[in-house]
């Protein structure tokens, strides 16, 4: 029999002072991110374990996993497995739903802005980018480029190897670049946005108490101010433009010259359109960590200030 609470007992609002870290990770919505961390870590390890295993087999001249396997009937092996996985998922989701209630806060009130006001967790990577880029870049241009870049992958990756099995050796560069983008620039930034950002979007370590009065003054400068030139002046504008455009030009031209000299076949195979597309996407992607380092280490806010937008 269920034990109904005796309403005659004095009900007082019990306030347990929790460890801030536990308080954050036990927020109902954040449990999903904890689950994500575990799942992603597990599957990343599994993928690379299989990739290295296949690489070893290849090196030994043996067929990779599944290369010579036979056909089997779909019914029952596959259907049974699908049903089992479905059951596992449903059991998992049911337990999750019984254990944790979906959050419902106060009724929407446009006059009270919570601090910090966070976007849904899967967009927190983009919100984190707002620290380093203006909204038009972080919120519009970069996400668009991410989607375009993802769709473009099959067309710019002309490496025919590694189709249908895990491997690392045969697709080193594409895997490294993709993993960097996926794990670091997407997932890690989400985790930072969820667990390490507090009021005022300031950095809080898990053991630190959130302090709504906390003021952090970071004397940021623009890049040209580092060398003593006012960034909002004509020379500042020109220098900024040179840096930004120069970064792209150098990023596009330097590998071209290098490959022309050392690996002209590869370049010929790629073709110029594909080459420029790859390098544009890659250079843009690398601009994110570069800008982060500029901002965090050198306290640089903008590189290039124009009357219309700032970079």
């Amino acid at each position, binding site marked *: 029999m269920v034990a109904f609470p005796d309403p005659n007992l004095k009900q007082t609002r019990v306030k347990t002072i929790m460890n801030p870290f536990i308080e954050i990770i036990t927020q109902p919505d954040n449990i999903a991110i904890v689950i994500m961390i575990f799942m992603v870590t597990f599957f990343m390890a599994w993928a690379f374990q299989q990739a290295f295993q296949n690489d070893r087999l290849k090196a030994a001249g043996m067929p990779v996993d599944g290369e010579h396997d036979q056909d089997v009937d779909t019914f029952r092996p596959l259907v049974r497995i699908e049903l089992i996985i479905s059951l596992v998922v449903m059991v998992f989701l049911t337990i999750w739903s*019984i254990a944790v209630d979906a959050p419902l806060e106060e009724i929407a009130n446009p006059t009270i802005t919570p601090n910090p006001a966070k976007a849904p967790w899967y967009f927190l990577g983009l919100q984190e980018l707002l620290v380093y880029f203006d909204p038009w870049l972080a919120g519009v241009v970069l996400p668009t480029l991410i989607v375009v870049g993802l769709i473009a992958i099959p067309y710019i990756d002309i490496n025919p190897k590694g189709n249908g099995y895990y491997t690392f050796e045969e697709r080193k560069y594409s895997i490294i670049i993709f993993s960097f983008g996926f794990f670091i620039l997407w997932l890690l930034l989400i985790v930072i946005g969820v667990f390490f950002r507090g009021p005022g979007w300031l950095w809080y370590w898990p053991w630190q108490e959130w302090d709504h009065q906390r003021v952090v003054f970071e004397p940021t400068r623009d890049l040209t101010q580092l060398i003593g030139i006012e960034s909002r002046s004509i020379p500042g504008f020109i220098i900024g433009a040179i840096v930004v455009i120069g970064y792209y030009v150098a990023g596009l031209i330097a590998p071209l010259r290098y490959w022309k000299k050392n690996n002209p076949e590869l370049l010929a195979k790629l073709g110029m359109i594909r080459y420029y597309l790859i390098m544009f996407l890659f250079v843009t992607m690398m601009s994110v960590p570069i800008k982060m380092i500029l901002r965090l280490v050198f306290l640089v806010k903008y590189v290039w200030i124009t009357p219309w937008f700032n970079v």
Partner: protein
Amino acid sequence: MANENPHSSNYRAYLFAALSITLLALSAWVIWNDEFGLRPWKHYQKEYKSLKHDKLEKDYQQALQDFRRSGGARRLAMLEAQLAKAEEAFKQKGVHDRYVELNAQLDDLHAKMATNQKELQMTRGQFLETEYYFTKTQKPEYKKKMDELQRQIDTIDGKGKALLVKEEPIRQAIYKLTGGMTEIRAEIEAIRKSLEERKEKIANNDKAPIEIKQYLIKDTDKADRCVSCHAGIESNVQVSKKEPYTKHPLGFVYLGHHDPTKFGCTFCHRGQGRATTTIEKAHGNVKHWEEPMLKGNMTQTSCLNCHGDIKNLRGAEKIANDTELIRKYGCYSCHKIPGYEGMGDVGPELTNVGTKVNYSWAVRWLMDPKKYFSTARMPKFFFTKDQAEAIADYLFSMSGTTRHDVDYATATPNEQLVEQGKMLWSQARCNLCHMTNGKGGNHIKVYAPDLSKAGSKVNKTWLFNWIKDPNKYFPGTRMPRFRFTDQEINALVEYIVSEYQDDEAESAYTTPVQISAASIKKGKDLIQQYGCYGCHKIQGMEMVQVAPSLKSQGVTFLRSDEMREKIGTELSSIGSKPVDLLDFGKLKKSIPNDRLSYIKQKLRDPRGFRLGLRMPNFGLSEKEVNELAAVLYGFTDSNVPVRFLVPSRQELEKMAGVPGYKFTGDFAKVISDVKCTNCHTIKGIGADYAPDLSLAGSKLQESWIRSFLANPDVIRPLLQQMPKLGLTMGPKPAKITMPKFNLGVQKVEDTNRSDVDVVVNYFQQELVTPDIPKDLPVIADIVMPEQIAMGKKLYDQKGCVACHQIGADGGAVGPNLSNVGNRLRAGFIFKHLENSRKFKPDIVEPNYGFTERERIFLTNYLMTLKLTAK
């Protein structure tokens, strides 16, 4: 073992089965949880039903026992025997046959009547059809047919009526045969019914469905499901004292005036009305719900949401009492509070304070008023000695004086004057308002300074001038001008100064010291920073610093009367302010993060949340903190539907365009002098400390008014604020007497009239109502002595003596009637006996429903009750 052959139908069968069973079990748990775990109200309703069943069963058994004991059972048995006998007689051959025969006749008649009725209907139908065609075509043949049909109808109708006439004799004949039985059966039925009803109640209770019960309040977002668990809350009968089954305390006051189906629960109690799954959620004691439930007396805070007048509101005694604290401490001086606009300064005017008090005293007072007097009203601002001196310097320089003290401690007082002063002190009942040595005074209703140490605070010249004419020094003060002669005032001053010396007083500046300009500047800045001008009128502060919000707009100085924003936060909706907007500062972790805790903590320790706060510490006791918090908690902008609002009398008058009452003529001068409204209410103006005088002219006899003003004495032995119906926790009854103002001695200024004449005249001209007749209606048929005798008889019969005192006999709840014949007008008594609540809504006196003649007798009797002059 699991079969590893993927083609086998047993492939991973155990895993599959185990998972299926797990999911099934989880589903079962979900269903069980949804049915019971999340529905605790089902349990409570069942429990309540069984408790109610027990109670009803007990009542039933009790009634059954009473029934048996009271002889009801014997009567029933007798009736049943009679019935049996009657039935036996009825069954005899002749009677029964006759009965059967009559019934057959009746049936036959009914059949005929039915046929007749059907025929009538058909003919009428034909008639209507024909009429339709006739109106459409206007052909005469239809008209003819209509007439024919009408004739038929009349014939059939006539037959029917003839049949109906036959019915009655048959019925009567049947009744004659069975009549005795019917009567006995009816009586048996009546006797049984009283018990059956109880049984039915039990059955109804057992049948009642277990279901969510809720009050849906239209035009609001309320759906209060509290009654789903609090099943007995609406009941008039206490089924169980245990929560949640108990009935609403004082339900006849609260629920009686607020029909739960229209008001619900959460308008008053707050909490989360929709929640039903746990107690914490329902009572709102959970995260993301900012309105925890209000319990007990604290709920009265919600009266403020709708009621404009809290005073004299039944059931709101606690909150009415608590709101006095706002007035006492003058919260409205620094905070904007609705309903407290233009209340006037709470502190004395400081324009000439330098001529009034000793400098050392001022510094000491500024530093910690509570340390000087524990009952001091002025809060502590935590000034350092330097700061206090700077402020005192500013104030003294504005009065044109220097740092100076006068010390009377060493002087020898004039014994004769002191003696006379002491007598005057008690005659004038100074102690009624002023506290001395912890005695006397009334700190909530009438606030006056404690005079225990006055002798070391003020100088004699000032005190003399003050008593002579308080309005001159401080227009708008509540201190009345007593009609003392100069000699008497001298005596009083001598008495006060010699009697009320402060042993701890310092007098560092018996030789005056000049004040430095730098210190004055510093003092001015401090006064501006802490907003002393909120409570005191201060010279040089007509220009005051503006609120920070205006400062950002480039405005730096405003004249005080132009200043819209007060120095403190607006409190109009503090009781519904989102918790996110409350700054808990460094106490975030140490006190519960809810609104009430914040308010209480703010009152306890106003500057404790963080550095830089300016609110002073009022040194409130924990009781006062709770009371004040209860009031503040009631200042909400909750979206109460307009239909719930009960505006105050003033608001209503404003809406109706009735100008507020103003005293006129010479009486206004007397009022501003004697401050009658400190204690009395007259036409809605003033305090409720002493009787309402709005109708005094109709109520009191002139001669009595005159003699009373000359020599006030106790009318009511007990204070008006007696505990009524156990609702209030008012102050302990104490003897309250009106001070002697020495009226009638002096003329009102600019006129030739004595002030008593002015008062009496005004009473008779203005404070009257046409509802109260001047004289008593005369009864001509009975001689006066007999009328008086009958009145006396009524007085004794109705138990008036239980509350009223005549001579040495009687209770002390109502006024003493020993001298009522001299005091009240006969017309008033007559009207009062008709409906005492008409002139005084909160009166305790019951309404006996006297007839007019009875009232005349009683009045005539009461008018004979006169005390002859001592």
